[in-house]
């Protein structure tokens, strides 16, 4: 009975809000957001106190505590509202539609290689973290003043906060659609996704065919050999452990080749970060892949729009924004969920989200609102931080350095 009443009150509240009769939260403070075009400047800005914190993707969240310049107050899955961002979608595998229609088996094979590598990452996390440390930093050390930390240790810390999955489930697609809403609110969607219904959005964004076919091939233990590609295929990615499946697929190519008959074999096996790899299916070379790293998703999407790359490992908002603008691209599957985190300066009183909000309100009341950095406007990190701040009664203002 009580539950029923609560439900009724809830419904009424929703109706009132929808009708604009009440404001959900009176904003009780401001927070400034600074966009840094990727994660590069964040540690420096934090260490020189030009920002009070940042939200970033891994492993750059861990750089702050390791360098003793900041502390992690929350990882993205725990951001408010409650459970809103649990298992939130993050990076996705995308491919250009012209490639998908000219050589569908090739795209399926890329999907299979990614899925097999993701399985390996989930089954062997510490070995995978090691390979990612090799890819991102040659397993080298990071030196911060008197402190020297192995990149392997940093990746070991970062790895458990990322959930590696590929299945384009309904729940995952609905999560993606949430980002469509968020990007609309930011005015970032002006094309095909501006007014689309949820079903239309999904039709525009996704093609799960390659995932289904790749899974079928894996289950049948036989990968179809695609038609050989005469020209190199450009594959874009970000230097983040979110894209571990790509790094592991390349580093562990021999294993995948022997076990599954599909491999991304680096042309220079000694390179820590190879840029040319061969896609081998059943021992036969199908294509040369040019692996192209970028600082942030929008750069990759520009490369995809100009057909410089045909496949991209990228965050979902840049992919959504690019598809909205007419880039002939489809989202094929997930790469990871979660995997971002919020960092604040060491001497901040904040230890978790609640105390962070308290701190932000006090600073705002004192006329010195805190300043947080995010990789880019409309990035996953930006969207989540904005939602969480607004949910906690803080209004967000874009600021300049």
């Amino acid at each position, binding site marked *: 009975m009580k539950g029923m009443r609560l439900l009724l009150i809830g419904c009424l509240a929703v109706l009132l809000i929808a009708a604009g009769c009440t404001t959900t939260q009176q904003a009780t403070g401001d927070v400034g957001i600074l966009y840094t075009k990727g994660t*590069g400047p964040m540690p420096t800005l934090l260490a*020189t106190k030009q920002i009070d914190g940042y939200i970033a993707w891994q492993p750059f969240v861990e750089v702050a505590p390791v360098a003793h310049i900041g502390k992690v107050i929350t990882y993205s899955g725990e951001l408010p509202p409650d459970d809103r961002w649990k298992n939130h979608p993050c990076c996705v595998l995308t491919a250009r539609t012209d490639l998908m229609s000219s050589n569908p088996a090739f795209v399926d094979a890329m999907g299979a290689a990614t899925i097999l590598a993701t399985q390996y990452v989930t089954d062997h996390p510490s070995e995978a973290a090691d390979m990612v440390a090799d890819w991102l930093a040659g397993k080298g050390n990071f030196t911060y*003043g008197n402190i020297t930390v192995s990149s392997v240790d940093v990746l070991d810390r970062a790895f458990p906060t990322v959930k590696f999955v590929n299945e384009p489930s309904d729940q995952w697609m609905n999560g993606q659609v949430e980002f469509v809403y968020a990007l609309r609110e930011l005015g970032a969607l002006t094309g095909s996704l501006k007014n689309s219904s949820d079903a239309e959005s999904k039709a525009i964004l996704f093609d799960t065919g390659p995932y289904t076919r790749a899974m079928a091939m894996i289950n049948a233990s036989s990968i179809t050999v695609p038609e050989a590609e005469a020209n190199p295929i450009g594959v874009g990615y970000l230097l983040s452990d979110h894209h571990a499946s790509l790094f592991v697929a390349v580093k562990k190519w021999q294993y995948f080749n022997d076990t599954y008959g599909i491999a991304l074999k680096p042309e220079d096996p000694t390179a820590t970060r190879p840029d040319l790899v061969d896609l081998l299916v059943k021992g036969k070379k199908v294509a040369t892949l040019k692996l192209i790293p970028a600082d942030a998703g929008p750069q990759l999407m520009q490369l995809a729009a100009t057909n*410089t790359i045909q496949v991209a490992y990228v965050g979902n908002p840049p992919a959504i924004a690019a598809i909205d603008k007419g880039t002939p691209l489809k989202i094929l599957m997930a790469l990871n969920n979660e995997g971002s985190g919020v960092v604040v300066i060491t001497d901040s009183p904040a230890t978790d989200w609640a105390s962070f909000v308290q701190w932000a309100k006090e600073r705002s009341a004192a006329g010195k609102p805190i300043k947080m950095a995010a990789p880019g406007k409309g990035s996953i990190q930006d969207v989540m931080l904005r939602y969480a701040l607004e949910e906690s009664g803080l209004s967000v203002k874009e600021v300049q350095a």
Partner: protein
Amino acid sequence: MRRPLGIILPILLLIVWEIAARSINNQFILPRLETVVPVLLSPTVDILGTGSLVHNALVSLERVGAGFLVALAIAIPLGVGMGWSQRFDALVDTTIQLLRPIPPLAWGPLAIAWFSVGINSMVFIIFLGAFFPILLNTIDGVRAVKRTWVEVAQTLGASERQVLSKVVLPGASPTIWTGLRVGFGIAWMCVIAAEWLPGTTSGLGYLTLYAYNFGQMHYIIAGMITIGIIGIAFDLLFRSVEDRWFCWRGLER
């Protein structure tokens, strides 16, 4: 006596650096010398999986060499033409003046779209950096060749081709050489910026930007010092050639 005097300031600078680094005690603002020097002293050791300083320096030099040669191959003939023929100059000059003030890196997005990521778009940007100084100096050099030399050659029956190759080009060469020197300097600056374009995986510019991601300032400074040293080395090289072959400039009166 000049050299020992000149060395005093850099040494002082190093001392001030170390004192400042110790008192600031924030390696993001200024890393200590002892974190930077080992990096410079072991230039063949891999840095963050990006390759060693030597490897990356060679990669950058290769790119700058390619862009510089293309610039040279286009700018010198074009400059000779513009300096020699007023009509040709009138035809081309406006376009050149319109394009010249655009910083090479502003071409980055277009370079990637036109030449795809990688060496070609970098070479394009380096080419743009080196092109204009070489061109302008070539034009100046050609125009500054003494009329009397040209007239003497013509009176003695030299064809236009002979005048250009035997009188004008040699006469303009000291100024052209200055253009090459300035052009190389700018090209060297551009290669660093060009390596910040997406899709790059090596080079001194890439190395510094990559180290930034992890807040590895000592690698950034080691990279900057390497960039500086190579820049100075090439400038000295250009200057020594200038001193040896073109010292007649200013003496021809």
